[in-house]
């Protein structure tokens, strides 16, 4: 991080980049206000905050492109406790989010191919293959990803990330902070929480050493507070989906969730979600549905099929089906109340043990049941995701219980979140078509 590097960063990001992105956002804002801008007869126009989202994401990756000139860089798993890294001034990159971006841009297949050519099996997670393929080939739709100085892996979403991050640690030869979160079969026990807390404290020490500075309590408290604020806002955003018609679909949430995952703890994230909530509440007040002619409401379980988000969004809307919620996007909002900025490490030890993926299959069924009720869903689509075993194992029994006991139609849809080669288009569309017919009764 030389003076020249710092100067280069300020020129490319702070001056030119920010100015360009602001202008681009203004241009998009103007376009969206033009009469005739939106012609889709089934879907309402995108949210007015969408250009702001584009600016945030593009700036995040632009900053990443030059981050090695200016910041210490940490690569972090999506459910990782990021607050202490943000408070220490790290630039934080989430390979899973980057993977999702590659999926949406339909370059994940190519990147998976690079990983497979290096010996990585097609049977491992497609996010991991996308990321490893990107690392090995240097290819990314973001232009360039910064090299990590530190890795942080939290197993609260799966054990897969542990093996994946061991691969990255070996490749980059950088320290790996592991936050190993015991799986919560029923309730977290005292020794589970104590174990996670000890690891967090050790993680802070490693991060401080790598950053060359100490973590200030004030900075950590403020970052944690901003995280809490953003998570609470996100929770309220997704809860607007309870309204009939729903002002937002889970497809929208899949896109708008990027900041809550990778920019948690930043002030602009709080501002962004506050504006998004205002807009959604305005839609609720005027009964504006994200799907114009909402007839049926569905709940989605598991990760999105990133390379089919747009196609499915249009397909569902044409049938008057609104995907009003998902267990996946809900996961980033449901733990808000447990975050305590006064006790950031202690509360993080418990909060980060409780994401839906670290809880039992029965608990997930209870979450689905609750959401079906609260969101008045007419059915559930369970994405059986070949690349995500912790989310998918249990779905066969969950589907049976939903159908037999709750009399809610539920469809198990076989796919993969990031590898289109594991997605059978015709079969999926046929199954979805038949499911829609069942819904219509």
């Amino acid at each position, binding site marked *: 991080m030389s003076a020249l590097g710092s100067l280069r960063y300020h020129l490319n990001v702070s001056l030119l980049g920010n100015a360009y992105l602001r202008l681009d956002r203004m241009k998009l804002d103007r376009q969206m206000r033009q009469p005739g801008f939106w012609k889709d007869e089934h879907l309402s126009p995108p949210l007015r905050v969408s250009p702001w989202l584009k600016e945030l994401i593009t700036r995040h990756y632009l900053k990443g492109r030059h981050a090695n000139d200016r910041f210490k860089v940490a690569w972090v798993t999506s459910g990782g406790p990021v607050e202490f890294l943000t408070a220490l001034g790290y630039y934080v990159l989430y390979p899973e989010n980057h993977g999702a971006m590659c999926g949406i841009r339909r370059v994940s297949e190519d990147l998976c191919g690079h990983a497979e050519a*290096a*010996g*990585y*099996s097609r*049977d*491992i*997670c497609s996010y*991991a293959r996308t990321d490893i393929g990107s690392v090995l080939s240097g290819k990314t739709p973001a232009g360039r990803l910064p090299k990590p100085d530190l890795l942080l892996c939290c*197993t609260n979403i*799966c*054990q*897969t990330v*542990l*093996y*994946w991050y*061991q*691969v990255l*640690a*070996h*490749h980059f030869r950088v320290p*790996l902070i*592991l936050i*190993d979160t*015991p*799986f919560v*079969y*029923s309730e977290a*026990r005292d*020794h*589970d929480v*104590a*174990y996670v807390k*000890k*690891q967090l404290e*050790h993680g802070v020490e490693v991060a401080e050493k790598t950053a060359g500075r100490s973590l200030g309590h004030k900075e950590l408290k403020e970052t944690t507070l901003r995280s809490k604020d953003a998570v609470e806002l996100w929770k309220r955003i997704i809860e607007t989906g309870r309204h009939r018609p729903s002002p937002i679909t889970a497809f929208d949430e899949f896109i708008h969730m990027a900041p809550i995952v990778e920019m948690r703890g930043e002030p602009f994230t709080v501002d962004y979600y506050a504006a998004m909530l205002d807009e959604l509440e305005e839609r609720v007040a005027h009964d504006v549905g994200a799907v114009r002619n909402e007839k049926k409401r569905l709940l989605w379980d598991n990760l999105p099929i990133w390379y089919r988000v747009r196609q499915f969004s249009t397909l569902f809307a044409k049938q008057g089906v609104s995907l009003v919620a998902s267990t996946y996007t809900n996961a980033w909002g449901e733990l808000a109340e447990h975050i305590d900025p006064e006790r950031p490490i202690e509360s993080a030890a418990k909060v980060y043990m409780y994401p839906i993926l670290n809880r*039992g*299959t*029965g*608990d997930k*069924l209870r979450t689905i049941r609750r959401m079906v009720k609260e969101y008045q869903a007419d059915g559930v689509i369970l994405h*059986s995701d*070949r690349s995500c*075993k*912790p989310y*998918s*194992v*249990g*779905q*066969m*029994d969950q589907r049976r*219980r939903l159908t037999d006991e709750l009399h809610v139609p539920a469809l198990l849809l076989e796919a993969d979140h990031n590898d289109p080669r594991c997605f059978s288009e015709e079969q999926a569309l046929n199954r979805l078509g038949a499911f829609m017919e069942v819904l219509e009764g």
Partner: protein
Amino acid sequence: MTESAGAALRIPGRREVLRSHKEKGGFVAAVFPIHYPRALLRAFGILPMEVWGPAGVNTTPGDAHLQAYTCNIIRNGLSFLLSGGLDEVDLILVPHGCDSLQGLGSVLLDFIKPRQQVLTLYLPRGDANDAGRAIGFFADEFRSLYKSLSAITGRKPSEPELLSFIAQEEAADQQRSVLFQQRLRLPLTDREFYRVLRSREFLPAEEFVRLAQETLQQKVETSHSGVPIVLSGIVPEPMEVLDAIWRAGGIVVGDDLLCSGRRLYPPGKDEDPFPRMAENILLAPPDSTRGSSVQERIEHLQKLCEDTSARGVLFYNVKFCEPELFYLPQIRKSLSGRGIRSVEMETDLSEHLPDQMMTRIEAFLEIFQ
């Protein structure tokens, strides 16, 4: 090769051992892979019987609960349970070894709810540097398991009793290490050798020690002349893979299998039984499922090859086993850079070894002949 003496060794079958233990008033636990405190179970009069599949089971019952992309050890194991294969056991222990085992434990507890009580156990992860933190947690896990086992059996073994069972298990583990050290002097085929080794999966420690000593007494002066290799992966199932190696002129001299070599638990040091059992497991050879670093695994495999004069490594993996699959490319590349050849094969625990795999084993071993 020397003449095989394996036929002379009498190893009782699982059912026979199970019934004999129950007739003496003992309990039997079906234990899914991978790591668990054998001594703790034994102190409660519970004999652990490990469930690694088994191979060749009809997976239809399990397929109603688990997707086809779940590994066969789990699907076969669940199918075995659902088709009555574990009816005689008194409880089921599902240690947390990977995402699939986690799912199995959870599905059993939440949905299937078998007649037997299901217990879980969380395995702490991390490389050798994390062992200190992990030992305290793992000891607490064992204390928690102690309470559950006490509630099931009505027994409360004392600390000295626990330490005595630990000593017994440590002795059995020590015998397993000795068997490996003497492998080349034992007049056994690979399959016979592994039948002895893997009887540790269901024999009481004291009986295993007797069997191991009996096996070691058969030691001969002339050693095997096959191509020495290291076998890495999860479990040598179907066992025909060992016949295929043997027939092709190979001999397994080093073991990095999850079911055996990575469970060569060293004796613990702590005088408190709970941390001591945690030390046993967490200080064992590097293991993907414990989250060891890639470097640790490379160094371990390299040393294993050096110590045993192995000419190559056969990675024998179970399909869909993510922990193993992630490590393989970097390990193989590094071993190759150090002049150690390797080959990777994948099994789905079907009843028979595919001909194609036998051909690949032959081709691999021919390189060295």
